[in-house]
């Protein structure tokens, strides 16, 4: 049906309001302009990278040849992967525990679990630093003792990143737990009972019925943990040693000497990796998941 040109807008027809459209454009520009500019200037043929000089991809090679930058980058990826695996397992288990069982002070436990989400990162960074220096001092007294092999083991890559990884797991697993817990809240308990009624054991029920239901939550939580770990600066800054730099910390130290295009290039690669991970995760989630059977 053809509409008259100046048809009156319906009460919920916000999409036609010029003011709202303009507002939307402003929001998008403010959100994405810096990122687009970052990506664009990674192709800028200029050392100081302030004015556009011409297109080049050479700074990707420069970044690639910067051993310290590449090392920090691989460290970041390794930490993010390890953190994702452990945070997802611990977070999922926590969510299941909070969902499945009744115990005293459950509400308190739920609150305490979510605490790392609200604690200022700077506080958490300092807390972790203080704890590590205490543990480190304690470890050093055993330097020549029976756990000497332990220190040696943890100087091998990627185990030398264990301190940072542990800190990352600590602040990212509550996010996984919260997401999975929210997903489980919509679970129809009769599905679990139906499975047992049909002869399945507790474990078979978990694997065949509960786990598939949780899957979208687990994937979303894992993605959250991955990106949180990948770009964390504050906590990492306090826990990174001279040998164990991560990408954000390295970039911070480089930027103090001016933003060169190779940093833009490396950042672009990081953005692409995050985007690809997000797309994969969303694809995995795109399966029918009606909560009611």
């Amino acid at each position, binding site marked *: 049906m053809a509409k008259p040109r100046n048809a009156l807008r319906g009460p919920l027809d916000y999409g036609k309001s010029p003011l709202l459209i303009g507002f939307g454009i402003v929001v998008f520009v403010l959100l994405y302009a810096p990122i687009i500019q970052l990506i664009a200037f990674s192709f800028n043929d200029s050392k100081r990278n302030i004015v556009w000089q011409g297109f080049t991809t050479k700074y990707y090679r420069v970044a690639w040849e910067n051993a310290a930058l590449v090392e920090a980058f691989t460290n970041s990826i390794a930490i993010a992967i390890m953190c994702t695996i452990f945070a997802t397992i611990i977070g999922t288990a926590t969510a299941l525990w909070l969902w499945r069982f009744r115990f005293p002070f459950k509400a308190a436990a739920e609150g305490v679990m979510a605490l790392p989400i609200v604690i200022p990162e700077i506080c958490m960074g300092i807390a972790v630093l203080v704890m590590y220096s205490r543990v480190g001092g304690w470890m050093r007294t055993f330097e020549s003792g029976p756990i000497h092999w332990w220190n040696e083991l943890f100087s091998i890559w990627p185990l030398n990143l264990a301190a940072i990884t542990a800190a990352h797991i600590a602040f990212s697993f509550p996010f996984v737990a919260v997401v999975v817990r929210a997903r489980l809240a919509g679970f129809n308990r009769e599905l679990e009972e*139906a*499975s047992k*009624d*049909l002869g399945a054991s507790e474990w078979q029920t978990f694997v*065949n019925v509960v786990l598939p239901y949780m899957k979208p939550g687990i994937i979303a939580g894992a993605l959250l943990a991955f990106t949180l770990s990948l770009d964390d600066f504050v906590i990492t800054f306090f826990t990174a040693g001279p040998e164990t730099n991560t990408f954000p910390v390295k970039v911070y130290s480089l930027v103090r000497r001016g933003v060169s295009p190779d940093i833009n290039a490396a950042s672009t690669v990081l953005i692409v990796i995050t985007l690809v991970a997000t797309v994969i995760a969303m694809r995995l989630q795109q399966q*029918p*998941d009606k*909560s009611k*059977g």
Partner: protein
Amino acid sequence: MQPIISIQNVTKRYPGVIAVDNVSFDIMPNEFFALLGPSGCGKTTLLRMIAGLETGGEGGILLDGQNMAGVPANQRPVNMVFQSYAVFPHMTVRDNVAYGLKVTGTPSAEIGPRVEDALEMVQMGAMADRKPDQLSGGQRQRVALARALVKRPKVLLLDEPLSALDAKLREHMQLELARLQQAIGITFIIVTHDQDEALSMADRIAVMEKGQVRQIAGPEELYEKPKSRFVADFIGKINLIEAEVSGAAKTGLTCTAKGLGKVTVPHDGAASGKVFLAVRPEKLDLLAKAPTSKTNISVKGEIRDFAYYGDVSNVFVTCADGLELAVNVQNDRAVDGLLEKGRTVWLSWHPEDTLVLTQ
């Protein structure tokens, strides 16, 4: 004959409530048995106890002679159709039906044909590869049925299976469930709050209230000879008339009833003091003139209101002493021109149709 299920002094307490209160009864093989009652009467709890989904009760549940105490749900030879159907959303129809066989290690050569048979039985063979979100409510219920029946249970438990369906489909499924039960010849236990459902499908019905079984009987006996006011009122509609027993006659009890005066009604047992006379609305005749019959109980009244349903009408008549009686009449020529607010009419019924309820 040995009962397939024997409920013996079963009690289930929750903090502050007794959900099932010392219930005992037997269910025979091949019976279509209904647990009927208002919500919160303990019928679902009892069903879940039979399934093993509710633990921690007292008393014994014997299944085919075997005590089920301590036997977990996944090892009981019963299967359940859940109220929400609980069809696994991430599996196809076929995988849903095969699930119960797979997890118990049935040889895969046997699973295929059994699943196909079960799907055929509920006429879902053509939809075997669909996911539950592509099915209607009625189809999902068929999947839940097939999934339970493929396990060849000794008893099939159905928890309010029709409550989520619309009226037309519900009627259709009532017939179909009854047909299915006769075809496969296993015991069905159905939990329902809908008296029509219980009356039309079940061989025997246990009416429950507040955790206790009030009466167990076949549909007709339950309707015609309810033993208590609760059962009489819960199953269908009934007129309850307060009365006082004044003496026993050869033909029954003589009582003085509100609005009726002295009446004599047949009664088997003894009764004294306050009782209720109960009569179903369809047993009453609505007449324009005083009836000539001397044997019938009759009373004069005035039409207060009526509801017209096409084939029948429900007429509410106010009699002397503020007695209110409901009458169901067929809308045939006999009532032509009779249905009119404020009109004086006569009600008449046979004393045999009157029940004396003492509790």
